[in-house]
């Protein structure tokens, strides 16, 4: 969160509202990682 906040100033200055796209990219990276959680058997329903 800290890094994202730090990056947001220059990003808004450079790209304006389109800077939100980077947030979309971050979310996509998080989603890709979240998919891997399906391999964790400890999370399977009992």
């Amino acid at each position, binding site marked *: *969160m*800290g*890094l*994202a*906040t*730090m*990056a*947001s*100033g*220059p*990003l*808004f200055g450079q790209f*304006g*509202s*389109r*800077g*939100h*796209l*980077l*947030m*979309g990219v*971050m*979310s*996509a*990276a*998080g*989603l890709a*990682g*979240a*998919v*891997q*959680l*399906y391999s*964790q058997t*400890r*999370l399977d*329903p009992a």
Partner: protein
Amino acid sequence: MSLPIRLGLFYGAIFVGTGASSPYMPVWFAHHGLSLPLMARTMTAPPMAIWADSFRLRRTALIFLCGITATAYGLMALPLGFAGWTVVWFAGSAAFSTIPPLIDVLVLNRSQRDGFNFGWHCGLIQSAPGFYYCFSTRAWKQQGIPESMTGVLWGVGVAAEIAFLWFLEPWRRRLGPRNLLILGGIASILRWTAMAVSPPLWLLFPRQGLHFLGYAATFMASLQLAERLSTPRHATPRPSSRSARRFPAGC
């Protein structure tokens, strides 16, 4: 109370003030012709992080920074005038900006040691709103959306979160943390991509409604994942389960 739950509560506490001030402070400073206090944080955070690293225990630095932040934000209530408020806000926000990276490092270290290495997935989805918190209000203003609608739009996001926590608890339990996290990620991608193309006002309302999935649902999923993936030494199952169940009401 288990460590992951305590860390989650710490995150919640430090972002309460940010949630309240983020929509308006950038606009207020911009109205006075200043963007310095917010932008300057990007300059102060690295040296402050180096200073914080000089402590043997990171929590010592965190205690100092939280104290400075709370004091500075408290001083904002005094009639200091714009110059005084700017100095105090700068001090408070400079100290605050160092807290999340520090606690992120602390959590990541503990997660590697204790085995709840889910952090990056939830963290990436939950960190994405950083840009939104700082600049959504200014972006909307540039887009021609009346300032009076800003609070309403932010309110829609918060109301959606409250509704989720209040009414959708059984649905959340049925879904499970992994599916909830996936939904949060998809909602975040949709939300931020739509935001990037400056949608019309009417479209902003459903987009703001997605906040409950992208933030609250992801946060709840992260708590559940922390609880399930922690080693037994740190996961005191029954108390932490009860805490997690009570947490929606707390939120």
